[in-house]
Every structure is written in C-alpha cells, then in structure tokens.
C-alpha cells in the first residue's frame, strides 16, 4: 500500500477549516527543525521553549484569523516568525537594565573579589621576597628584633626577655631597623607596593 504524504498546504487548509489534528501533524513534522533553529540562535533550552511556543501561538492566531497567504511555504513562514521572535528576544535583553562602568558608579567597587587574584598573589610574593632580602642587610641586633616583632608577632616584653635586653633597647632596635630599611629603600629607589 502506498503511503500518501499530505502536503503542508493541505494540512494548513484543513486546519483553517477546523481540523485541529492537522496542527498536531504540522508541529510533529517540523518541530525539530524549528526548535533547533531557535536553539542555534539563543543557546538556552528554556528560552528556546518559550520562543517555540510563542511562534506557534502567532501561527495559530494568523491562521485562525484567515491572514495566512503563503501557500506552500509553511515552514519558511514559521521559521521567519521564529527568527523575528529571536530578534525580539535579543532586543528585549539589550534593553534590560545592566550595570556598566560608564557612569561614576562602579559595580566592582561593591562586589569586588576580596581574594587575591593570581597577579596580586605574585606581586605580594615578590614584595615579601624583596623585603626579606632587605631585612637580611640589617645589623643582627636590629634584624633579630624586627623578625621577632613583625614575623613572629611577639610583644616587646617577650622580645626583651628572649633577647636579654630591656624593653626600651628592643624598642630602640626596632626603631633603627625601620629607619635603616627606609634609608635603603630610598637610596635604591625600591618600590614596594601592591
């Protein structure tokens, strides 16, 4: 028995005449092409689903109003509707309020990443290394106090006990250590910044 393929034009004509089943056949016949056409533009399944639905709502309204006049070109007509809806979708999206940095307000000033990024981490490491080398150049007594205070986070009372000097001497050594570090930094124009 020979299978007879009903043309789109005939199905459209039947649908306009009140045969609802014809619409089901048309959707079944072309749904993959239309759906994947939309998806190839928007790359979002939910948006594709919405546009696919809106496309057929337009198709139905046009057909039921008797405004369809492209006999034999049903699929290109539907594709054109889908394409226009995709354009509408992108237009609407473009109009949606978005933050940009063209005004005084900078969104990144309030949502900045508090963690260090790779570049900042690298710079911080370089600064630490440079500072370590400078500390190494200090006289031993100053270097000892500075390391205990800054790196070991010890109090001057604990430092004085550990090094066997008075608190005032420890404070003095710390003061000279910082002065000497500043001198070296100024002398060689070393920039320590993050």
């Amino acid at each position: 028995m020979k299978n007879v393929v009903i043309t789109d034009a005939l199905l459209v004509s039947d649908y306009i005449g009140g045969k609802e089943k014809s619409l089901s056949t048309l959707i079944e016949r072309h749904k993959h092409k239309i759906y994947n056409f939309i998806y190839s533009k928007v790359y979002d399944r939910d948006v594709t689903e919405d546009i696919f639905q809106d496309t057929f709502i337009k198709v139905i309204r046009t057909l039921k109003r008797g405004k369809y006049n492209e006999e034999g070109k049903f699929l290109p007509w539907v594709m054109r509707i889908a394409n226009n809806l995709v354009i509408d979708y992108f237009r609407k999206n473009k109009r949606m309020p978005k933050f940009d940095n063209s005004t005084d307000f900078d969104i990144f000033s309030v949502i900045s990443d508090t963690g260090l990024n790779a570049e900042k981490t690298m710079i911080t490491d370089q600064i630490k290394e440079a500072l370590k080398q400078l500390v190494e150049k200090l006289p031993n007594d100053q270097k000892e106090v500075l390391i205990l205070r800054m790196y070991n986070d010890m109090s001057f009372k604990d430092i004085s006990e550990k090094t066997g000097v008075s608190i005032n001497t420890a404070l003095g050594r710390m003061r000279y250590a910082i002065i000497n570090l500043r001198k070296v930094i100024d002398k060689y124009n070393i920039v320590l910044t993050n």
Partner: protein
Amino acid sequence: MAELYIENFDDTELFEPKEETVNFILNYSKALKIIKRNSLEFEMLQN
C-alpha cells in the same frame, strides 16, 4: 528570501520541544476562537 530561513541549517535532530509545550500549543489552538463582527475581530479563549 523564504529559503534563507531554512538553508544552511543543519537538520540534526538534537533537541525537541517538551511534550507539555506542544500540548499547551494544541490546547491553545483548541481554545482560541476568533469572532468577527462587522469589521471587528474578537479573540476568545474557551475552556
């Protein structure tokens, strides 16, 4: 012009609409009635 919308389009059947979407469309179609009165058209959605 019409062919522009279908040419170069890969017809691989990757995705298809959800069944509920298709059902919604079919139900919408059944519910929609267009009533013409003089030069006016009214759309009615009947349950």
